[in-house]
């Protein structure tokens, strides 16, 4: 039994950590999230140049054959830096679906551009009523001759505003909750009938509400087989759940460090906050919450790597734990900072906000507890 990283993985970790510590400064991040783009295209270029965007893709697709453990290493390190650049929407979600389902032409057309950072993509899977259920899709696509007509509404599409292409999940057959009958389309958001309402999320990321009205797309925009998208979609969202859980683990580790440091310097009643036993115990508890989550993260990454039978269950166990720990660590870190914890100028509050949105992304504790019980 060995929980340690390979030499390559350690190098990857070191390289991202160096970037985050040296270049990805909090003040720069805060400036970037206030721009229209919402992140730095220069940093995105750096990600491409250093090979991070190509990590999970096969060598034949121009990538580095990385697996779930590499993805975990990347996201944990990016989490520590509170990196807002849209790694998950591009590489894990869109890239994951294209590499799994794409035709040779689609892969050749899109994957090199994702890996080089040339294009931005997103996957529109959630709808106002669907909450976290991937099978719950009302948006419909009807086949008419050699094309499809899409009508519907997609909610809170991550990285929607920057996207040159969107992968839309639509229903080509079956009822609202059926797993069968889901189909993916690669849609150019400038097409007639597609309208985007773009906005910022509280964590600094960007998203869109997407309305599709009578949108006509050629059959060539179909990604994978008609009606058969669910399995790949679930698999990709599971991998993205691992990725965002790793991000959360990185964030929690960093928040615990920042908070511990703060309590060692902040004095009240003539002593540092860290000298009060009541507060020491609470920091021990947040530290344990982090450790417990890290353990499940490693377990889950290993099971996904082995394509283990119970890997779905492992994903839900992990995300449930992330939800519990994120609330605990996030809220306690702010509390231990006192008033400073709720100010916009201090970084801890921004880590807290990202940790809070992660609680819901790809399913909250209730959703994953139910999924765990059902599997």
């Amino acid at each position, binding site marked *: 039994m060995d929980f340690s990283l390979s030499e390559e993985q350690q190098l990857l970790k070191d390289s991202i950590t160096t970037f985050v510590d040296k270049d990805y400064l909090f003040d720069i991040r805060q400036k970037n999230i206030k721009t229209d783009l919402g992140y730095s295209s220069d940093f995105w270029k750096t990600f491409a140049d250093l090979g991070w965007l190509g990590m999970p893709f096969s060598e034949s697709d121009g990538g580095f054959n990385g697996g779930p453990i590499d993805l975990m290493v990347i996201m944990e390190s990016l989490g520590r830096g509170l990196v807002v650049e849209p790694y998950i929407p591009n590489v894990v979600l869109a890239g994951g679906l294209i590499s799994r389902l794409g035709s040779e032409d689609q892969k050749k057309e899109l994957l090199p551009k994702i890996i080089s950072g040339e294009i931005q993509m997103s996957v529109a899977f959630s709808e106002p009523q669907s909450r976290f259920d991937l099978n719950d899709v009302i948006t419909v696509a009807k086949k008419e001759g050699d094309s499809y007509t899409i009508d519907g509404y997609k909610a809170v599409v991550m990285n929607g505003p920057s996207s040159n292409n969107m992968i839309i999940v639509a229903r080509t057959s079956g009822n609202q909750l059926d797993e069968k009958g889901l189909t993916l389309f690669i849609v150019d958001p400038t097409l007639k009938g597609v309208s985007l309402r773009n906005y910022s999320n509280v964590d600094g990321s960007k998203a869109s509400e997407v309305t599709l009205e009578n949108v006509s797309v050629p059959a060539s925009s179909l990604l994978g087989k008609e009606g058969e998208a669910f399995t790949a979609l679930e698999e990709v969202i599971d991998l993205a759940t691992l990725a965002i859980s790793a991000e959360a683990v990185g964030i929690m580790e960093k928040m615990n460090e920042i908070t511990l440091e703060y309590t060692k310097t902040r004095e009240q009643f003539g002593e540092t906050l860290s000298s009060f036993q009541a507060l020491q115990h609470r920091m021990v508890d947040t530290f344990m919450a982090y450790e417990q989550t890290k353990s499940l993260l490693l377990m889950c990454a290993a099971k996904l790597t082995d394509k283990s039978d119970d890997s779905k269950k492992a994903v839900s166990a992990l995300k449930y734990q992330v939800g519990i720990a994120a609330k605990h660590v996030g809220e306690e870190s702010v509390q231990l900072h006192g008033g400073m914890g709720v100010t916009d100028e201090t970084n801890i509050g921004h880590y807290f906000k990202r940790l809070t*949105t992660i609680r819901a992304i790809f399913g909250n504790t209730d959703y994953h507890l139910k999924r765990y019980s059902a599997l």
Partner: protein
Amino acid sequence: MNLSFSEEDLKFQDEVRSFIADNYPAEIKNKMDNGIPVSKDDILTWQRILSKKGWFAINWPEEYGGTGWSVTQKHIFQNELADANTPTLVPFGVSMCGPVIYTFGTQEQKDRFLPGIINNDVWWCQGYSEPGSGSDLASLKTKAVKDGDHYIVNGTKTWTTMAQHADWIFCLVRTETTDIKQQGISFLLIDMNTPGVEVKPIITIDGSHEVNMVYLDNVKVPAENLIGEEGAGWNIAKFLLAHERTGIGGIPALKREIRRLREITSELPLGEGFLKDDDLFMDKLNKLEIDLLAAEYSELRTLAAMSKGGHPGPESSILKIKGTDLQQGLSDLFVEALGYYAHPFMSEDDLISNEGRIGPDFAANVMPHYLNYRKVSIYGGSNEIQRNVIAKAVLGI
């Protein structure tokens, strides 16, 4: 034991309810019900409506314009205000500075300051916390040095709520450096228009501007603005902490909000049904409601003891802890109810313009509220300090 209201109390409840129904301006109600931030003018308009009716300074002695209501009546009144979702009354003048002035002030000070508070002509803010003095309030460093018939004040106050609206600030200042830090503190009233007073906003993680830094740079304050004696400031501060402790848990507002969340669960679509079909979510809502019931009856026990002439003791720290726990817990449940739709960020300006909301109508201020409410376990004596109070004063350890 009889836990119901008397006939007379019920009649009073009707009177309050119909007064609010008849006099609560529709425009302000609309803002409050739809999560649009209310302006300074809105708050003043509503407070003046209550003043005119004689229902503003309800806790003041009648001779200064109070109501002479029983403890139960005050409780009913506050419940009805919260139930109708009226703007929270700004406490700094009417609940804090006013009582200090009528308790410790000279006749001249009472004549000068109390009418401005009760008529809502003067907006007060509170100058207690300093950058280095949060939980350890007595370590405050703002200095007031006597210079003839004036004090010269230098220092920095922080977390000053709504200082941007304030005409006056009541401050704890150090008039003497002593071995025991609680000594040498004085209670001083400062006109915010005095040269040397500067207010700088502190933006909080929800993106709002509610609190401020207040810089005091060689501010010349007439000595007649000192309340009580020099060095009596800490006693006054302790008086204030013990005063007005009921209602601190915000229980009436919690009851309204939990009712609203329950309604929302029948409106929010989930699959082919509604959020109310989600057992795990409803379990959490019901658990929180039970916890709230316990807090409500704890508060009623305190009220009953007070109506028999008792004083709210350190037990009110329990209400502060439980009330703020519940406020935070409920704000989090609202976030959970929304799923992804809790994430879009609406700035204060977006909310005021009330255009282009994303997701369900009520969604816009749910996350800001959750984020903003991290403050409630920090302010007003952090919940850690409240636990110290209970340990020391109630459990005797």
